């Protein structure tokens, strides 16, 4: 009897905690959505052109090596895997096109997005979080500058504009990786590999991946600025904000990727 009541009490407590957790999570998502809306409404003059330029370099240009390397190795591994799979159906001829499709539709944007999340969401959250806990955000507000307009908007726009370019570069490198493996290890003839790649690749395959990239870029910068502006309580608070930003950006990229794939490609 005792045991059952405690078990029941525990279960109730757990359900309560889960319920509160869920409510907390929904409230949190609501606040994030509100923040995203606020960022959109803050895209108005005066524009911070200089800051936008800086952020394009910091977020876009400086992420290029890591995104390119990620794509190169992924494309190479993908070609090997698809070869192994397609050999079971005697369909090795499909390796170039399926590698390319897998790369431009999925792995280019998703892995590129995750790498940018690790690099950019963290640095944005740490930078803005430090400004928050050292009262620099308050000082900005006292100078009539809205931190959302002044800090968040240029970062979100820069990430949104830079990510499709990064994804495009990653796609090219990924296909090159597949090509290298195809020619060097799988016995493909170079020109044939490239012709197969291009012939079966459709406009929408590429465009959908670039759109995904833009969405992921915006999510990364939104997560970074959102958590940075909510940081509290010194170095520890900045650390917590940084971690939350990366986790949130990564999970949102994967969730958004599924939703966008449904939207673009479900019959």
């Amino acid at each position, binding site marked *: 009897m005792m045991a059952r009541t405690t078990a029941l009490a525990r279960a109730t407590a757990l359900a309560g905690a889960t319920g509160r957790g869920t409510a907390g999570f929904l409230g949190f998502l609501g606040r994030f959505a509100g923040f995203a809306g606020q960022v959109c409404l803050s895209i108005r003059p005066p524009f911070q052109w200089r800051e936008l330029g800086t952020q394009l370099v910091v977020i876009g240009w400086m992420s290029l090596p890591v995104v390119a390397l990620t794509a190169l190795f992924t494309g190479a591994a993908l070609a090997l895997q698809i070869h192994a799979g397609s050999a079971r159906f005697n369909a090795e001829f499909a390796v170039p096109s399926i590698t390319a499709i897998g790369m431009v539709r999925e792995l280019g944007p998703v892995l590129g997005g995750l790498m940018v999340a690790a690099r950019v969401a963290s640095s944005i959250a740490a930078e803005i979080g430090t*400004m928050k806990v*050292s*009262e620099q955000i*308050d*000082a900005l507000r*006292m*100078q*009539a500058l809205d931190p959302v307009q002044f800090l968040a908007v240029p970062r979100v726009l820069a990430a949104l504009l830079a990510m499709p370019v990064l994804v495009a570069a990653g796609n090219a490198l990924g296909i090159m990786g597949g090509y290298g493996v195809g020619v060097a290890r799988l016995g493909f003839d170079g020109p044939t590999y490239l012709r197969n790649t291009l012939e079966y690749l459709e406009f929408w395959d590429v465009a959908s991946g670039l759109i995904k990239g833009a969405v992921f870029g915006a999510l990364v910068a939104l997560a970074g600025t959102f958590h940075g502006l909510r940081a509290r309580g010194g170095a520890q608070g900045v650390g917590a904000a940084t971690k939350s930003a990366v986790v949130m950006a990564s999970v949102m990229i994967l969730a958004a990727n599924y939703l966008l794939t449904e939207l673009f490609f479900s019959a």
Partner: protein
Amino acid sequence: MISAQDLHKSFGAKTVLRGVSLTVAPGESLVVIGGSGTGKSVLLKCLLGLEPPDRGQVDIAGLKQPRPHELAAHVGMLFQGAALFDSLPVWQNVAFRLLRGRHRMPRGAARELAVEKLARVGLGPEVADLFPAELSGGMQKRVGLARAIVGNPPILFFDEPTAGLDPVMAGRINRLIRSVVSEAGATAMTITHDMRTLSDVADKVAMLRDGRIHWQGSRDEALTSRDPILHEFVTGGAETGET
């Protein structure tokens, strides 16, 4: 004018302000004292709209419940931690408000004005191109002060302007604040633990304790008051014989 009526502020379960009311008349200098952690900085942030008060009214320069951006044109603020923008060199920190907005100045003129304000807080032109991280704490504080007074705002808030300064420099900063108030006619509210600031800068004094204004009056009354708590604060407990 700066006025607050019945301000309340809590952070979660922690109540910091329990009904603070005060008024600073135009051209007057109020010094706020009180123990560490009694909510002096929080009071300032509530006045400026940086922290929303839970209850109560604020009126600054005729603006009711002002938002920070509405105050920007009227108010200069020195933060307790200086709060310099660490991505900008010192002179751009000082000239920040001159370089932006509809009435922005040419960079050369803004820089000249910044260097002039730096001189007033005892910093030479050689610091103008340094970054905040290259300065000592006391130097950062003085840059923050220069940033607060640039553009001659009619209302000034200083959160511990002399903390971290040597006595000579502290005296100089006190005289600067005094002259900004008496010559330019600014209204000022200064938070301090420094009794020299109190005697040099204050027209009026208010003491914050337990989330309320425990005492307020003129400077001379404050210095001679027999209120035991205020007296202990002003004399540093020297005459009460406590250890």
